[in-house]
């Protein structure tokens, strides 16, 4: 097994949406409306990035609206991998500011968990009872594809039977200023809070028609692969993701979710390449394709 199966996917983002493929579940809530999907309990002091990540995971896992019931089957073998760079940046800055002008007494213990970058992955595991390996990648612009690659690695190494991969970035004053400080290729539409979830499993045996396989993760260094980043396949099938703004750590998962939804059920296209990254963090690509075509190719 070198590729893994993409078995579910979803997005969480609000506001004006670009044209997205049919069959792509989208939680269109603002972070502060997340309780409409997740139920109210257990959301106190959660950051916007955590709330959006939960919304995307909730839809991809196929959980009915409201607080989830007992853990799903094989919860011990369900891993979680999150990619986010700025998820908790605003919390860190706010806490440091509070201490600079006051003291530790001004820190809220309830918001304390938000000072750890792995709060998002930990919260997903806790809420859905997912007790397999739990990873957080904070690797910059290629982090989303890296998270998918780590998810595939967990499956191939026998550490998990199912991996919930989430990419998420918030939109707040800190995130906006940091995004603006990135290289020119990330500029364009303003950043927007966004999350995506892609669920990976071992490929079905025997091979099943229309199963989507993800693999061939490739590192390209500081030069985008050919075809260039901005004429990626996503443009060619009529979805322009540039209006979402720079996805940064979410980008690779967002693109994979959109591409998977587009490929599913298509007969005239058997595979495409998902690319993500920037000049300073490097570019990565992965290949997403349908089972039978992939073998014939």
């Amino acid at each position, binding site marked *: 097994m070198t590729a893994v199966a993409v078995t579910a996917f979803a997005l969480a983002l609000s506001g004006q949406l670009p044209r997205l493929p049919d069959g792509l579940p989208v939680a269109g809530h603002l972070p502060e409306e997340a309780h409409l999907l997740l139920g109210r309990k257990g959301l106190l002091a959660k950051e916007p990035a955590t709330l959006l990540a939960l919304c995307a995971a909730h839809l991809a896992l196929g959980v009915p609206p409201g607080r989830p019931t007992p853990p799903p089957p094989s*919860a*011990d073998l369900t891993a*979680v991998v999150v990619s986010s*760079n700025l998820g908790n940046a605003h*919390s*860190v*800055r706010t*806490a*440091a500011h*509070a*201490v*600079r002008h006051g*003291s*530790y*007494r001004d*820190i809220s*213990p309830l918001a*304390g*968990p938000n*000072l*750890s*970058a*792995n*709060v998002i*992955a*930990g*919260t997903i*595991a*806790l809420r*859905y*009872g*997912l*007790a*397999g*390996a*739990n*990873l*957080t*990648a*904070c*690797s*910059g612009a290629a982090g989303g594809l*890296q998270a998918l690659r*780590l998810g595939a*690695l*967990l499956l*191939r*190494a026998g*550490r998990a039977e199912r991996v919930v991969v989430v990419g998420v970035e918030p939109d707040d004053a*800190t995130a906006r*200023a*940091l995004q*603006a*400080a*990135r290289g020119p290729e990330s500029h364009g539409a303003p950043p927007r809070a966004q999350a995506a979830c892609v669920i990976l499993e071992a490929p079905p045996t025997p091979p099943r028609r229309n199963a989507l396989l993800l693999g061939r993760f490739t*590192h390209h260094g500081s030069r985008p692969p050919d075809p260039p980043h901005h004429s990626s396949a996503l443009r060619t099938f009529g979805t322009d993701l540039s209006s979402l703004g720079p996805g*940064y750590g979410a980008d690779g998962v967002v693109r994979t979710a959109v591409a998977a939804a587009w490929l599913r059920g298509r007969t005239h296209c058997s595979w495409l390449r998902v690319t993500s990254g920037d000049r*300073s*963090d*490097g570019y990565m690509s992965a290949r997403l394709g349908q089972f039978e075509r992939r073998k014939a190719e």
Partner: protein
Amino acid sequence: MTAVITGCELLTCFGNRQQTFAALLAGRCGAAPLRHLDGTRLGVTHGYQIADGNEELPLRPSRWLARCVTDVVRAARLDVSGRRISALVGTGLREIRGLERWGPGDLPPDPAGLHFAEAVRSALPGVAEVVTLANACAASGHALALACDLLAIGEADAVLVAGCDGLAASMLALMGRTAAAPAERVSPFDRDRKGVLLGEGAVALVLEPEEAVVAEGRTALGRVLGVGLSCDAHHMTAPDPVGITRAVRDAHRRAGITPGDVELVIAHGTGTALNDPNEATVLREVFTPHASPGPLVTAIKGAIGHTSGSAVLHSVAVALDIFRTGRVPPITGLHRPIDELRGLRPVVGGTVTAAMRRAQVHGFGFGGVNSVGVLEATS
């Protein structure tokens, strides 16, 4: 396929690997009053810090990491040309100190400096990928597990596995907010423990497949038999013995050993009411029914502090030095063991001389993330 460690370099409050192991054997405690941060505002007055100048330089963890990587690449004679080399860096706090020091009116820090790709590439330009794994206090244990996986499935010819962390005001303030009273040192498994303190440090190891190393006639420092991972999915901050036990069993299964094969445990041992009784209980349940007299238990955070993202690999480095020297350092800061340690063999009061061949290393973190590694001596 078994992974072997062909190089290991580190930095702690005591200095490099040799200096750190000597300090551990001598039972020294590296805690000192905070250098760059205002303890009265933070509710934490002490830390285990790296003395790198009176002024607080930017990107300190990145500098320490780059230094360890440079040294380990040289020591392991890591040849990049034509080989697929991955780097996995475990960290708890990344470079968030840069976010903390970013005041109103200042230019924002470069977000690429929040993670460690640039630090690793500056010391190892040919590296194919750099993954920054922010897995709290178990981060470098997770990096070690994934490094073994990359070698096992043949996706890398060698893996640089590393960790680094410095002090951050936001995390110290949270510790100050939740502690009953400020601690001045870490006392793992001690009845009079006052809580945890952070330690600064970095660490870098090179992992390669044993077959390739043997074929080239090179020597290794130790073998990584297996690393187990789990997530409690139980509570964000309170560890769960069930989740920890799953990681221990997973490690033993991957290593192909039984509890009776373990001769030494380097425990997580944070000197907190949340960790120590739970961890000791798990050790008792895993080892006492199987092994007599059971493994020796030591821990290093009383000496070098909780080095967060580096913590697991710091323990791995100490295990390698124990294999090499046959000397097991005591648990610095442990004088009156807690009841839960009864039936176990903590190293208290002084160094124990004993040839050790197999060690188990623990690292648990916020979010319920657990990693347990099993190492073996190669000579």
